């Protein structure tokens, strides 16, 4: 398996070291190195990658702003020298973060975290329900009972109409592929919503049974396409 990645890093010595680690692993192909967010964004508007090694503090715009603006959900490994980004990392479904400088062993541990996750959700086309693995058992959720799905790092949270929450080991990216044929849509890198449950939409927010769900700029056009606007 070859993982296509880009490196977004303005420190040359760090970028070079990362490239060397990728090469040594034999698993990662570096498609590009960018020293700022706008250049990376230009590339990502025309190309997709499996993984981004992302520095957070860069001149002009920070790494999280890049994640806000891309239309797909690659795996992300932060390369930083600050521990304070843990909360944001969680919010942005970041797989791991590497404190610079990191050893090659630590790099390979991070790579292991982005390997395809175990199947934790099963769906069948045309079915009115899905099964998720949570709390040590398979739980049946009727499609219509799900309000939305929210990313929690390496986990996702299913929120249902009776305000129950089910947490399972999976990612929004993986689920997006599985539920896209159903009446679900990714509206933000951290959210998939049930289109049947949207009460209203204001600016860049969807409202579902009192829950506010952000809609990213990149996904807004898709949302309008899938809503029955007359």
């Amino acid at each position: 398996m070859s993982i296509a990645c880009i490196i977004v890093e303005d420190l040359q010595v760090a970028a070079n070291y990362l490239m060397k680690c990728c090469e040594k692993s034999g698993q990662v192909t570096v498609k590009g190195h960018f020293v700022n967010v706008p250049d990376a964004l230009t590339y990502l508007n025309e190309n997709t990658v499996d993984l981004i090694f992302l520095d957070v503090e860069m001149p002009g715009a920070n790494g999280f702003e890049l994640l806000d603006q891309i239309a797909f959900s690659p795996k992300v490994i932060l390369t930083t020298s600050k521990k304070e980004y843990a909360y944001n990392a969680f919010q942005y479904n970041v797989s791991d973060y590497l404190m610079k400088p990191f050893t090659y062993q630590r790099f390979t541990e991070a790579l292991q975290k982005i390997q395809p996750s175990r199947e934790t959700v099963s769906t069948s086309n045309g079915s009115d329900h899905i099964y998720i693995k949570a709390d040590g058992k398979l739980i049946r959720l009727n499609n219509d009972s799900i309000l939305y799905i929210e990313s929690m790092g390496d986990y996702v949270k299913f929120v249902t109409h009776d305000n129950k929450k089910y947490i399972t080991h999976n990612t929004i990216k993986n689920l997006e592929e599985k539920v896209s044929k159903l009446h679900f849509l990714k509206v933000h890198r951290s959210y998939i919503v049930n289109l049947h449950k949207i009460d209203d939409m204001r600016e860049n927010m969807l409202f579902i049974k009192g829950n506010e769900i952000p809609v990213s700029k990149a996904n807004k056009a898709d949302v309008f396409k899938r809503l029955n606007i007359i």
Partner: protein
Amino acid sequence: MNSYANDKSFSFNDEINVRSITELYGDDYAYIEEVFDTVLKEYEALANNINSSYSLRDIPALKAAVHKIKPIFGFVGLISMQQQCQQFESICHSATSFDSLVNDYGLLKDRLIKSKLIIEEEKKKLEFFNTQRA
């Protein structure tokens, strides 16, 4: 300071954490030389950023500039310098006035200058060492 390299090993300046260098690069001295070279090329711009932020008395910019230079010391094994940068960032974070930073900045600046000299010296030694081994 440790004695100069012989045929089989290289002796780093005592300020440099050899264990850290070994963990990062093993015994790939050609690459270690490349790392020191790259760090030196980036050093000037990063240090200038610190100086200009200080001249402007801009604490957040000064903190960000020190944060930016910090990891390069880790790449060349100057771990204590990396820690000093971290401490200065914390001082900036809790500073109530710019004047309260002056003393700590003076200490940091001295070590920034000394660190650059060490990196330059090690780069020369590595270059010589690698040439001898070739």
